[in-house]
């Protein structure tokens, strides 16, 4: 192996710095999944009867489904669902009225992760909902938002305080019977965030949820629901980390977004779950269903994701373009290093007329990682004059990794157009040598090259997140000026 390749390996295999655990007294129910367990979860959360029933319907649907193992390049041992604990909450976290009542250990955990929950200390302009294992521990700036009619709270609270909205919209984009993991999530979801932006309101700050898995032997099943009424706008950010553990943990989240006429929702994720060690031991199975629906005319939903963690990621944030002239976007950077598998992409369902979608996917493979782009662009018969542009680029670092691209395209009318571009490149010795000849050392050269590759996606992230994302790639900020 040449020197530059060694440096590449060192650079991309930097230690996971969020792998610590927080020692805290937990209220955790024993492993296993039955109707009684679901009733217990629902009861612990003080949910109304309709919610319990909905969960049970989802559970019954899940029992009839099979765990998916259909991708040939995508193997994982069957998961023992009876060995997982479906509810874990810090004991002190019940009924927190203000930050003063949050366990200091938890606040410390978030501080360590770089997320300050103290409103005074936080940068103005970002409201945070912090989810620790199964429950939301704090939501900041709630009052400021409420003045505008915006609801931003934990899902549990939404079920209690705004049952009519939850009942109306929950499952309207991702029904509980949608797929195996979505059904499981619907049955056992513990918490998550709820955002509601009323008609004509432009949310004045970024809304953000930070998910942290702490307890062992638990799964994390959060549920996020974002509703933007007519002409509303919101930008939402999601971040996640987990401690370093030897066993695999399941993360099966569901995110639903609904955008009505002229509404716009931007959803950004920086996913940094523990990815397992270099031999592929441990790590999070990140099996997530994310879907948005542009229900009204000229609605717009935009997904931006930076996926650097998790042992296996299986995630296809999609957009149903139902309203005429609606717009769907998907920007993704996915990194697969060591033995990580990142199988991600999107689905754009064009149903309304004159709908448009853009897909930009950047896959970076290193070590023995496997990075797959899998996407569907479907244009229905009546979706006249619709357009899609797809660009899938793969970058390979070293000789043992791989990258695949599986684009599916279905077009059922003659007035629409679909463009697909794809490229594969390798960080070459020549590129690194060129940088070195200009005085830049190997590590900085690789950072620069990787960041340049991902730039098109990073520029869609809110500033604060873009910085974090770039750091995550083990690099200094490229192009901080302009």
């Amino acid at each position, binding site marked *: 192996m040449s020197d*530059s390749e060694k440096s590449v390996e060192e650079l991309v295999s930097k230690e996971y710095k969020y792998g610590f655990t927080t020692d805290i007294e937990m209220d955790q129910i024993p492993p296993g999944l039955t109707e009684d367990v679901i009733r217990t979860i629902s009861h612990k959360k003080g949910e109304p009867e309709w919610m319990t029933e909905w969960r049970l319907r989802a559970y019954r649907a899940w029992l009839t489904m099979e765990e998916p193992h259909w991708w040939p390049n995508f193997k994982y041992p069957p998961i023992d669902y009876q060995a997982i604990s479906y509810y874990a909450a810090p004991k002190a976290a019940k009924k927190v009225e203000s930050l003063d009542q949050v366990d200091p250990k938890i606040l410390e955990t978030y501080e360590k992760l770089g997320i300050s929950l103290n409103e005074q200390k936080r940068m103005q302009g970002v409201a945070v909902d912090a989810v620790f294992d199964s429950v939301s521990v704090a939501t900041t700036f709630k009052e400021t938002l409420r003045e505008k009619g915006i609801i931003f709270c934990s899902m549990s609270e939404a079920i209690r305080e705004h049952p009519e909205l939850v009942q109306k919209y929950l499952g309207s984009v991702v029904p509980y019977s949608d797929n195996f993991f979505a059904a499981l999530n619907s049955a056992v979801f513990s918490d998550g965030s709820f955002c509601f932006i009323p008609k004509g309101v432009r949310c004045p700050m970024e809304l953000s949820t930070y998910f942290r898995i702490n307890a062992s032997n638990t799964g994390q099943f959060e549920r996020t629901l974002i509703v933007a009424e007519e002409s509303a706008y919101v930008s939402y950010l999601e971040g996640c980390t987990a401690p370093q553990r030897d066993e695999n943990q399941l993360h099966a989240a569901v995110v639903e977004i609904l955008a009505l006429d002229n509404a716009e929702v931007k959803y950004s994720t920086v996913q940094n779950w523990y990815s397992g060690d270099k031999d592929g031991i441990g790590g999070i199975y990140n099996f997530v269903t994310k879907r948005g629906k542009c229900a009204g005319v000229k609605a717009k939903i935009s997904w931006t994701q930076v996926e650097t963690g998790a042992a296996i990621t299986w995630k296809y944030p999609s957009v149903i373009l139902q309203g005429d002239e609606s717009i769907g976007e998907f920007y993704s950077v996915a990194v697969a290093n060591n033995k990580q598998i990142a199988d991600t992409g999107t689905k754009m369902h064009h149903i309304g007329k004159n709908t448009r979608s853009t897909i930009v996917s950047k896959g970076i493979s290193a070590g023995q990682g496997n990075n797959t782009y899998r996407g569907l662009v479907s244009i229905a018969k009546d979706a006249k004059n619709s357009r899609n542009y797809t660009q899938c680029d793969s970058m390979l670092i070293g000789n043992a990794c791989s990258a695949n691209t599986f684009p599916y395209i279905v077009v059922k009318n003659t007035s629409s157009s679909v463009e697909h571009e794809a490229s594969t490149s390798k960080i070459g010795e020549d590129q690194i*040598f060129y940088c070195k000849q200009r005085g830049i050392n190997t590590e900085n050269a690789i950072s620069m090259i990787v960041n340049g590759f991902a730039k098109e996606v990073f520029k869609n992230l809110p500033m604060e997140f873009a910085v974090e994302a770039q750091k995550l790639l083990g690099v200094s900020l490229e192009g901080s000026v302009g």
Partner: protein
Amino acid sequence: MIEIKNLHAGIAGKEILKGIDLKVNAGEIHAIMGPNGSGKSTLAQVLAGHPSYEVTGGSVIYDGKDLLEMEAEERSQAGVFLAFQYPVEIPGVSNSYFLKAGLNEIRKANGQEPLDSMQFLKLLREKMKLVEMADSFIYRPVNEGFSGGEKKRNEILQMAVLEPKLAILDETDSGLDIDALKIVAGGVNKLKSSDNAFIVVTHYQRLLNYIVPDFVHVLVNGKIVKSGGKELALELEAEGYDQIKEDAKVTA
């Protein structure tokens, strides 16, 4: 400035340079000429420290230091610059970002304060005039989508910004039309001083009409077979390399 003694080097086990001796002093321009495959580019790459080439013998002393012991970026930081024959593309990284990163690394290594963005931009704009480059190049990704001529001009721009002590130009004239050639040569002539030196590797005499060398060396089959003044280039142009190759065989 640089003294190369009995340098042997090759790639993938194949010896290409078979004992090069060359001494270059500050203020001098040396031209290395020779037929295809004679080892001209290999010499340029070895001096710059390309990792694919293996040095099997000889020594190179640069500024009193053992050049061959230095990493490629250390050579750059010490003032060795290579204008690439085939400049490399770096998608998504703007020309100015790239060059600023390089310049500041070099400044840092030499105990100078890094330039901030405004200072750098001012410097860059000044130097861009030298090679008559449009402002838009500042923000375009490094060499991506550049024409052959634009890439070569960009190399000279980089050289102008980094102000090396020893600049090695590897076939900078190839692929250039006459106007671009004049611009590139003009840039080199403006940068030339009594403190720096140039090694100009070229196949054709044409470039040497504009960059007038103090010495011309002819490289054949990994060895310098003939050295002389600038008139040697004209001789070669008239007679071609065949005669010199023949002579080389006889003396070998």
